[in-house]
């Protein structure tokens, strides 16, 4: 059964090829069957593989050699797929959630003229993502890494006739590119130092050759971290993700919430051995995660656009994952990645259902009272928001976030400060997630519902709502049942002998703060909305609100410090020395052609004279030379 592994990325790729070649000539039903079916089949195969793998885990994972990609000197790069617990979780989420989102898209994109193009890009994305997570060596991982980046660009700019969307696509591509270049240099450093690009041998050799905190370990991990920061929208490269919401909503759910943005988390989890050898960089990872989760959380509080609010929330939750990676708890990061994929895909798709029902209205202040109009969407969105806010005991988000917070406090690499940031973030998360719920579903109706979502949209929402609530029961903390299916599968051990009392106290604290956030949201957005209104109208309040709404002014800062000087430099260099040379070459060709074409007069005798003159000169040259 494991031998079928190659079909997991191959099926979506085949779907892409078919849709790219014949998509325009196929009827819509055919496109839906190929587009959603290829990913669905891939998910089914993944399910079978997972069943086989979990029943009898092969020692050291399973790898499948496909062919040799290239060979230069001693360097031989194979196309080899590698299945181990980390990549298994990633492909389960990528194909499973991916299929649900494809199914949802068949209805969401129903009236789009470029239906086939949309599914072609989506299938290519899933294929690239699967190559990324199944890669056995770094060049292949980088292939998938760039592949998902390309698809992200194509899908953000899917409605490219609006210049704003095209601009957002270019911005996303360029900002992540900064990280990608750093990561590529990181690969060179790794190869230079360890003379291999195979993931398994890199880990082994690094442990044997590197001393902790040596220059090469710090350089390599810092460069890999830059790549992860760009892809996962972490400080200081987070600016592209809110703008990426210009794409269709299923794209936001699949690429910018569930899968691609977690590629950075995956990279760091995959190379966690290297980061253990560079504690200084690892500490920076934790600090960046903590700073990002607070900054993005406060930004999410002040958004009007429902998708932008969810985008900032995604950045914030990715910050939690980086916090976990920074304290060495990479299995907690992957656990939160999994639950986050469930509830954030759910939130985005429910938001998409609302946006479609309100005829492409995204402003939360123009929504309201939708609880009665769209009851099923309300219930599923509520499930997602509860999981996002980590309401205790009943939601998946609680267990994954609790694992991260507990690790941040108890791990030797963590501390009270990192934990404090995480807990404060939990309060903010409760506040902003229920702000969205109350603004959209409660209060008075401000807009008219024109369409209700059908089966293809409601089914994925229902499935994900169940997962968002129950998906956390695979891993329960020591104080509550102590189930360790997930971490045992990952091969990490939950900390044994940790004081259960401290764990319980921190759990109660975190749970109370999350509930407190919801309670404050009830007061501020349901009972006494005038408090917020009055506060925002004071000078200090308006400045703070403006700051949060603009994502702490990073866009303006980068515009002034990087974009404008660069544009100025480019326009300044438009008239440099080489430009003169090239323009002269062009002018010469232009003038020569104009002069020669004047000879085409139509006078036969002039032509004749020319021929005679040419003949005489040729004969003279032959005779004289």
């Amino acid at each position, binding site marked *: 059964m494991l031998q079928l592994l190659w079909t997991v990325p191959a099926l979506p790729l085949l779907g892409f090829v078919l849709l790219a070649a014949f998509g325009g000539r196929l009827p819509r039903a055919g496109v839906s069957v190929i587009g959603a079916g290829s990913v669905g089949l891939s998910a089914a195969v993944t399910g079978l593989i997972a069943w086989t793998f979990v029943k009898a885990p092969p020692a050291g994972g399973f790898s499948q050699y496909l062919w040799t990609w290239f060979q230069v000197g001693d360097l031989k790069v194979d196309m080899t797929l590698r299945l181990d617990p980390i990549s298994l979780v990633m492909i389960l989420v990528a194909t499973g959630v991916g299929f649900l989102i494809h199914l949802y898209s068949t209805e969401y994109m129903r009236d789009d003229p470029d239906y086939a193009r949309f599914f072609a890009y989506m299938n290519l994305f899933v294929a690239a993502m699967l190559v990324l997570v199944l890669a056995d060596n770094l060049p292949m991982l980088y292939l998938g890494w760039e592949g998902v980046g390309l698809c992200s660009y194509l899908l953000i700019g899917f409605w490219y006739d609006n210049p704003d969307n095209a601009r957002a696509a270019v911005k996303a591509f360029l900002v992540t590119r900064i990280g990608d270049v750093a990561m590529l240099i990181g690969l060179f450093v790794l190869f230079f130092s360890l003379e291999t690009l195979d993931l398994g041998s890199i880990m082994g050799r690094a442990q044997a050759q590197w001393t902790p905190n040596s220059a090469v370990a710090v350089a390599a991990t810092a460069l890999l971290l830059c790549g992860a920061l760009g892809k996962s929208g972490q400080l200081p490269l987070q600016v592209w993700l809110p703008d990426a919401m210009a794409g269709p909503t299923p794209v936001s759910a699949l690429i910018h919430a569930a899968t691609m943005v977690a590629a950075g988390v995956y990279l760091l989890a995959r190379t966690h051995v290297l980061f253990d050898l560079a504690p200084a960089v690892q500490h920076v990872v934790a600090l960046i995660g903590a700073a990002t989760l607070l900054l993005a959380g406060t930004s999410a509080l002040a958004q009007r656009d429902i998708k932008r609010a969810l985008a900032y929330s995604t950045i914030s939750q990715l910050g939690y994952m980086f916090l976990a990676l920074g304290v060495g708890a990479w299995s907690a990061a992957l656990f939160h990645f999994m639950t986050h994929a469930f509830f954030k895909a759910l939130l985005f798709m429910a938001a998409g259902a609302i946006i479609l029902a309100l005829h492409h209205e995204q402003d939360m202040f123009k929504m309201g009272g939708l609880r009665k109009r769209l009851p099923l969407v309300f219930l599923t969105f509520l499930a997602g928001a509860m999981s996002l806010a980590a309401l205790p005991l009943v939601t998946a988000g609680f267990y994954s976030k609790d694992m991260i917070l507990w690790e941040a406090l108890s791990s030797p690499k963590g501390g009270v400060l990192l934990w404090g940031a995480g807990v404060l973030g939990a309060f903010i998360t409760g506040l902003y997630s229920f702000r969205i719920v109350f603004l959209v579903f409660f209060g008075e109706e401000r807009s008219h519902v024109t369409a209700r979502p059908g089966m293809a949209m409601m089914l994925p929402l229902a499935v994900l709502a169940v997962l968002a609530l129950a998906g956390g029961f695979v891993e329960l903390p020591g104080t509550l049942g102590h189930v360790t299916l997930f971490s045992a599968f990952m091969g990490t051990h939950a900390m044994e002998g940790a004081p259960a009392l401290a764990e319980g106290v921190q759990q109660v604290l975190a749970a109370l703060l999350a509930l407190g956030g919801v309670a404050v949201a009830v007061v501020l957005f349901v009972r006494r909305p005038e408090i917020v209104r009055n506060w925002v109208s004071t000078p200090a309040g308006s400045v703070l609100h403006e700051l949060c709404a603009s994502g702490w002014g990073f866009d303006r800062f980068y515009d002034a410090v990087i974009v404008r000087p660069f544009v100025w430099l480019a326009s300044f260099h438009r008239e440099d020395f080489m430009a003169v040379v090239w323009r002269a070459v062009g002018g010469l060709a232009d003038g020569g052609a104009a002069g020669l*074409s004047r*000879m085409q*007069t*139509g*006078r036969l005798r002039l032509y*004749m004279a020319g021929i*005679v003159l040419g003949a005489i000169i040729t004969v003279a040259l032959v005779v004289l030379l």
Partner: protein
Amino acid sequence: MMATVPTEYGMLLAALLFGIGLVGLLVRRNVIFMLMCTEIMLNAAGLAFVVAGSRWHQPDGQIMFIIIVTMAGAEVAVGLALILRFYHLFKTLDADAADTMKG
């Protein structure tokens, strides 16, 4: 034994004929005369072939002349047709009337 004409004489005659044709082509404006001038030049070239062939006692020169005559026949057919179209278009036989092309 027939009295033979020296090769030089034959070649001089061919060059003279060619020169007459060339000069005629350059100075005449009537397209019919220009066509005739090209005929003279073709025949001059043919004469040169024949003279050269007799100088080296080879039949190739005469074979070339037959080819040239055949080609000249074809050329006159096309040329006359062109001249007819030309006259229809411009109502004159003056070749310089066709200088309407401006680069």
